[in-house]
């Protein structure tokens, strides 16, 4: 099976600090990946590199067959590569509906249009509302983002990414800061996403990881230590010593 997203020899350093080294990934379609590793392992950096928020020093990034290494972040999104942020990166004074409608308009290419009123774009508005409803945010969609409860804001993060109609969705700790009992709900919503969508999520809670991931990538010190099925990772002695044994997160 050919990969929807792959990287080859991806490397990045900040001064003398190596944050990514020789990262080779190949994510097939529809697989749910968990990216785990201790703090400072370079997980978020990897997402930043893949999505174009950071420029790699070396290596290539491919979406399907296309080399996207030199594309700007917004152009990568248009090709089907979306992400969410560990810390809410939303539009505080836009309503949830407006935020998602904006993302839909950007995808449809009408966000540069300034002579037609927004309510004229019924399709975009209905689609935005549909996305919010699918994440059970419909009741809150007229409220300003800043007035939403934190857990709802985490869902809005995902709604914004979905509005770009991604092929690959990179979730940077989607449940960060959410109470344990709510984070399972959040991941239920994530696992309910379309099955052809490739998802990679960063998560520290091992119960969640083993429950929702079909493949796991372990990163340590800017390198990929190992990739495998949850059973393989659970049995891997290196992972046990370097990650699971040495450092517990909570």
């Amino acid at each position, binding site marked *: 099976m050919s990969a929807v997203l792959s990287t080859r020899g991806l490397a990045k350093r900040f001064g003398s600090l190596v944050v990514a080294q020789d990262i080779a990934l190949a994510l097939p379609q529809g697989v749910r990946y968990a990216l785990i590793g201790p703090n400072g392992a370079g997980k978020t950096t990897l997402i930043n590199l893949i999505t174009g928020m950071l420029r790699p020093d070396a290596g290539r990034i491919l979406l399907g067959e296309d080399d996207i290494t030199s594309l700007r972040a917004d152009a990568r999104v248009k090709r089907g590569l979306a992400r969410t*942020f560990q810390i809410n990166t939303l539009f*505080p004074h836009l309503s949830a509906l*407006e935020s998602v409608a904006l993302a839909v308009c*950007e995808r449809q290419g009408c966000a*540069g249009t300034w*002579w037609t009123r927004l309510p004229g774009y019924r399709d975009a508005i209905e689609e935005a509302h549909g996305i919010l409803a699918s994440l059970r945010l419909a009741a809150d969609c007229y409220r300003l983002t800043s007035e939403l409860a934190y857990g709802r804001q985490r869902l809005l993060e995902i709604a914004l990414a979905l509005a770009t109609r991604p092929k690959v969705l990179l979730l940077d700790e989607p449940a960060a800061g959410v109470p344990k009992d709510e984070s399972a709900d959040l991941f239920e919503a994530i696992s309910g996403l379309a099955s052809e969508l490739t998802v990679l999520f960063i998560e520290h809670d091992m119960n969640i990881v083993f429950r929702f991931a079909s493949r796991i990538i372990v990163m340590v010190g800017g390198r990929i230590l190992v990739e495998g099925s949850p059973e393989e990772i659970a049995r891997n002695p290196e992972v046990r010593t370097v990650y699971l044994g040495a450092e517990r997160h909570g």
Partner: protein
Amino acid sequence: MTAADPAVAGPHRYLEAQVRWRRIEIAFWIAALLPFVVTPAYLQLASQIAITALFALSLDLILGYAGIVSLGHAAYFGVGAYAAGLLSKHVWGEPLSGLAVAGLLAGLAGYATSHIIVRFRHLALIMLTLGLGLLLHEAANSAHFLTGGADGLQGVRIRPLLETFRFDLYGRTAYAYSLAVLFLVFLVARRLIHSPFGLALRGIRENAVRMPAIGSPSRAHLRKIYTISAVMAGIAGALLTHTTSTVSLEVLSFQRSADVLVILILGGAGRLYGGILGAIIYMVARDQFSGINPQYWYFWIGVLLIAVVMFLPNGILGGLAKITARWRGRWP
């Protein structure tokens, strides 16, 4: 905000309600005609207010909506003013076509500079716009053969509006003309704000980091609004030339850039009417205070500015909105 429960009415109706004309808006524009009957002796002032309001509106589009803080917006006002003046002096004096040419040239200047402007934010942006403004001011000052330098541009002759209405001493034509242009440009700005593009601008203001992550070419958006804003500022400058039949170097001055920023902040940025309200208060205050004490009237503007920023952080309009919201909350 809306009368009916939006959750019942559906997402489309909710957005429709947000862009609808409010009664107070219609009342405001009707009231704008009052100076013709109530204060006919002040029509020149009213015309100046309308021009300043248009200039402030152009700044609001980039500052209030897209978050571009500029201390050099007079550059485009000045380009428009000189374009209109030079056109009438050397080519033809028909005002409406002059307005179009001035807007076009200011827009070109805006588009050219926008490529630099959109790469910067915060303090660097303020210094950059300030620098560009100073640059243009000194260029116009030294180009004496073209602009008349510090003496101002002489020999501006404007033909009657629509070949019928002369620009009279009392300012009847001037105010009617300025108000009509302000209203038309306002309609364009209002439409723009309520378009998908307007939403994208608010997105950039709210979170510039997120925009590329939803596939938005933010810089292209910023270049576009900066150009549109420059066109509007240029039209305002041309209006000043047409209604006063002269162009002084002051149109490009730092003072004008600073004043319009003060006006917008007084009135409330990002509210479309903030610049207009600010212009009315500022210009009337200047007229009154300078009548009392011509030398020190800026003292009172200073007091006003400090009071507004301290007690009404979102400007006078922001304060009013808060009060009415509270009032409505108490008596639903």
